[in-house]
């Protein structure tokens, strides 16, 4: 076969494979993702059984243990709208009231149940307000 034709065929095969793989990647990323929502957005319209990535701050005075579960409320960053979360699994060291958290949840009744080990607490020293003048 003519070498330049051979090269063209190779290129077309490689590009087709790349496009197919990229399409699979893009498709699965949309189908496997969970939407990031604030507490007020979840209050407005969370569907039972659907996964969401809840982001906000741990409400003051809301943290308590119920057996092996950790129960707390997550509030909006800017106001006090909050949702109850029941979570089991690893609790990051920096977790405490007032801290920014991200947790994967599903609505079950009136409570949002956290996916095991999905709780992330932001590192506190990294977003301290500027102190200097």
């Amino acid at each position, binding site marked *: 076969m003519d*070498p330049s034709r051979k090269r063209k065929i190779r290129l077309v095969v490689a590009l087709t494979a790349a496009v197919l793989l990229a399409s699979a*990647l893009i498709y*699965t*990323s949309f189908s496997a*993702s969970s939407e990031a929502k604030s507490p007020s957005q979840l209050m407005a319209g969370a569907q039972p059984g659907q996964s969401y990535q809840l982001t906000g701050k741990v409400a003051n005075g809301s943290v308590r243990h119920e057996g*092996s579960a950790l129960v707390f409320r997550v509030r909006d960053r800017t106001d006090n709208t909050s949702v109850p979360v029941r979570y089991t699994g690893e609790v990051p060291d920096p977790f405490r009231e007032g801290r920014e958290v991200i947790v994967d949840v599903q609505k079950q009744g009136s409570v949002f149940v956290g996916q095991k080990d999905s709780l992330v607490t*932001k*590192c506190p*020293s990294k*977003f301290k307000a500027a102190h200097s003048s």
Partner: protein
Amino acid sequence: MAILGRACLIIALGLALYGAGASIYGARARKQAWVESGRRAVYAMFGVVAIAFVILIAAFIRSDFSFGVVVDHSSTTTPLFYRATAAWSSQEGSLLLWVFLLSAWSSLILFVLARKGKLREVAPYATAVLCGLGGFFLFCSIFLANPFGTLANPPLEGAGLNPLLRYPSMMIHPPALYSGYTLFTVPFAFGIGALVSGRLDASWITSTRRFALAAWFFLGLGILLGARWSYSELGWGGYWAWDPVENASLMPWLVGTAFLHSAMIQEKRGMLKVWNVSLVLAAGVLAVLGTFLVRSGILDSIHAFGASTLGVPFIVLIAVMALGSIGLVIWRRASLRSEHRLDSLFSREAIFLLNNLVLVGLCFVVFWGTFFPLISEAITGDKAAVGPPWFDRYTVPLALILVLLSGIGPVIAWRRATVSKLARYLAIPLAVGIAVPLLCLALGVGHHLEALLMFGIGAFSLTVVAQEFVRGAGARRAMTGDAPPAALLALVRRNRRRYGGYVVHAGMAVLFIGVAASSTFHNQRDARLSPGQTTKVGGYDVRYVKPTFSVADDHRNTGAIISLGAVLDVSKNGKHVTTLNPSRGYYPDLSQGPVSRFYQGESTSEVGLQAGLRRDLWTAIQPDTTQIDRLAAEADRKFPNATPQLSLFIAGTLAAGYARKPPPATFRVIDSPLVTWIWLGGLIVVAGALIALWPAGLRARRRAPAGYGARVARELGRA
């Protein structure tokens, strides 16, 4: 001193601007004096930034609370080692560290090239790029994140370093990562210089190769140290979470790995010029992108610095770097044509190309997953994120292919390989690669296909490397009559790059075997236990024997005043295996009441770990301090003006009370196989990279006579 520090930054910015201008003018007008002046401006920039950096470190060591950044990130109670290194836990200090390292590496490469008289036409443009990058970070340091901001009324005490960061390797991790990022800007700058000047032969790659390798080495070391910190300090028992900031460091490392392989093809065969220059430019852009991800808070991450003003300037810089790079490559595309074509798909060039595609594919997967929240928001209007299972779906098969290629690459011939020769080289490794998973199955390890494949492919790759060393040393012995260790040593010394690379391949195989085993076959249990109770993990019985506490006994020298923990007895089939002592350290928060402050501050896990070559037993504890918190609040009300001694006494009494009547505590216990292989593999990779980086001695550099080369080739053929 703060004024002097700020003045240094302003002078450095002036030097950066001058260096860029003088270099470009000198190159365009062909005035060597201006080019040299531009180069010296880089040396001066390094000197001035070094003074600023020392001033900042000294302020941290002296606990000079007139510096705002010291107040926010250090305290008098922070141990000295952590005070000295706390500077780069702050946004401001880490930017200064970036520009300090950048100016250091820039000075080094320019000094080396000037001494050797190399890349005279490329270097001025590269100098301008390096000065431009330095100028950008200096601008950010001066106007947006000033490390020398002062307080009119300095407090007597600072907030202290985040306790999570009080871990020795965590203090080395940022400089290692930043060295990697900044070192990647050196080949980037010379790639731009080569494109602008039109000198597109392999000389710029050869001259900056050691810097690209050093960037790869430091970035890899930083990633490894970060993973180790995560495993030992974060209290979740894992070492990689596909967090955006972890991913940010992985992307340039993957592209850099691809470049280190494909650069060999350009040096040997004059091929892949567009590809190589694109990889170098991409690695440079990804290095800055990594810094941007951490600085901007644009993506939700455990690490990200939020509420930052640096986002827009970084986006502008990245856009300029990316678009400029693409524009230059298109402009010079005619000069970047390959000198040779790929002779066969059955050749080392083709394997390297495939390895490059896999690495770039991996980088694309990581990039897509990391930026997916922004992509989905732009397309659908809703921010969405993908989790570790999505990453694993793509990265696991790609990693399998990568390890397989790392085994084939060293033995397949350049240009065109023959099946018979390759089969001869690969017969033993293939047999080992098939035998290992079968043996695992026979021993009842488990039926997880991907893990078994990784064990087999890893064993195959390790055997190839061992075989290459045996063959090479055998040939050397036949030539010189050296003893086996001497022959092996001489073999490596004569070709550090090649055999260093093989050691890296072996290390990566060991590391991936560790990752496959520990992520697939680990057993984990979260249990709430009272003293005397037992939980089962894997085949082990873990019994909570008794609680422990310590007051003002900071044996780890991290600044924790109170510690609550447990003694755990681990047994198997009734036989004692080990005793573990997980604990939790409590760091005081001076804004709380006199007694509560000892419990209401930050707290961190001190992991109880029994590490071994076969398996790790890992434990962490979350004591229930509800009762202590209630009693501490009561004590605050009763003794609002308690002296520090009385406060500590009461806090210690509460800890002793906890130990006398302990409430149930929550434990996480993990039995995980071959985790040590990950760290061992990482150390082997580090050793291999050091071998490849180490400068060759004069004797080794001297070209071997043709007759000697021919004899070695004959012996290798026989071996």
